[in-house]
């Protein structure tokens, strides 16, 4: 379970997160929606300890990761995976080395087994036989899928997805959505998905949370969000150009 309590973060004079509270239950897919640049990725990076908050707590299974040593944080990170917005594949490594990175670095598993695991992960994202390619030889969509293969290769308990469907064609985007649901159902993984793609949000979410002005303004099931009465949430999910968000109310 991920518990975020009174989280605040500023960059210079820009207050990105302001006393934010959110609970993500084990085994659920929590989708965080909000406008571009509203701090969704910043929130995600706090959940895995990439950013340190100005105030507040991030509690992962009873451990406040904002107060622990680097070594303990690394141990917790091994149960996490993150899919980055731009995939963040290591340029100097092959696809095999990228996908198998966590297993090659942190386990004593025989290389034959790692190769099998990498091949299986790549197959899950619809990419087979590309282990020896370099990231520079892949298209944007392929990079994203390799990034996803890397995220699932070491069977994490929690996966954080930063815009998982951005830059993919609609068919592949839907396939990725199916995979998020599949991983959640079959492996009971907890997922946090940051997106502004509402089709994807409705499809994969157990619950949806809307981030606005540094705080979570509403949390609910996809149906509750669809039928919301909050004008801010309503404007965002309908994608209306005019409304309280754009008028700054």
């Amino acid at each position, binding site marked *: 379970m991920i518990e975020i309590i009174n989280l605040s973060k500023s960059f210079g004079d820009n207050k990105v997160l302001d006393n934010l509270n959110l609970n993500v239950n084990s085994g659920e897919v929590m989708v965080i929606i909000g406008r571009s640049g509203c701090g969704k990725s910043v929130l995600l*990076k706090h959940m895995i300890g990439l950013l340190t908050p100005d105030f507040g707590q991030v509690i992962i299974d009873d451990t406040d990761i904002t107060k622990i040593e680097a070594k303990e944080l690394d141990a917790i990170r091994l149960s996490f995976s*993150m899919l980055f917005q*731009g995939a963040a*594949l*290591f*340029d100097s490594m092959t696809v095999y080395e990228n996908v198998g*990175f*966590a297993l090659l*670095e942190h386990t004593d598993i025989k290389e034959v087994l790692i190769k099998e695991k990498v091949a299986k992960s790549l197959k899950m994202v619809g990419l087979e036989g590309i282990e020896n390619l370099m990231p520079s030889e892949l298209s944007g969509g392929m990079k994203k899928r390799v990034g996803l293969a890397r995220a699932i290769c070491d069977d994490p308990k929690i996966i954080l997805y930063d815009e998982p469907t951005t830059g993919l064609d609609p068919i592949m985007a839907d396939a990725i959505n199916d995979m998020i649901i599949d991983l959640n159902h079959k492996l009971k993984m907890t997922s946090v998905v940051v997106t502004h793609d509402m089709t994807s949000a409705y499809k994969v979410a157990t619950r949806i949370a809307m981030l606005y002005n540094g705080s979570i303004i509403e949390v609910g099931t996809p149906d509750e969000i669809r039928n919301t009465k909050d004008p801010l949430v309503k404007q965002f999910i309908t994608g209306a150009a005019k409304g309280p968000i754009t008028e700054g109310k």
Partner: protein
Amino acid sequence: MKNLIKRLGESSLNFFIYIGGAFHLFVGTLAQIFIPPFRRKELFVQMFKIGVMSLPIVFLVSLFTGMVLALQSAYQLTKMNAQIYVSSLVALSVVRELGPVLTALVIAGRVGASITAELGTMKVTEQIDALETLAANPVKYLVVPRFIALCVMLPLLTIYADFIGIIGGYIIGVYKLLIGSTVYLQLTYDSLVFKDIFTGLLKSFVFAIIICIVSCYEGFRAEGGAEGVGKATTFSVVTSFILIIAADCLFTALFYFVFP
């Protein structure tokens, strides 16, 4: 006036934040060197990139510097009929000063810039964040191999530069100034003592630390896409150049009193 004081305060604060950050990276790197696992493969890759790949440019710079130094000193020494001392002048200048400093400047330009550009690109494309999420320490993974490679290869390149610089002086001394080959080599050998070579190498070791820490720190600080990486690279090379010259001045003064 108020604005001026504010700006002065901000600049001083930024300066101390920079120094503190760079020192923190240096201490972190030293601590990580001794913690397993040791990445031998990556270390050899870096040694090859930093050392072996720099041999041609160090060769050219050192050879021409040795030749120019011989020609310029002959210009004055001939007036006093003392051109025979070109050999010792070249040897001492190259081994004590020009070998270590010019090699360090060349490496700061060639290798330091490439390290900042590489790490800066990794930073802006979130690859460094990805390393952290995969529980790999970026300092251990990226800085330590480059640090060890630079600390080993820069002194070795300096020895190579010293040798090539002396050959440059030899070419001018023997073929232009018509000093006998044996006399030239004997005078070169006689003029050099252990402390000349030792102080030169000690300086190059310090320069290696400066190049590595500045270039890695700038890489880690890069932000704002390609433009940010470009700025970080420029700043890294300029800072390394200034610090190398300043450290050279400091150490030369120090050696002057310690090894008179």
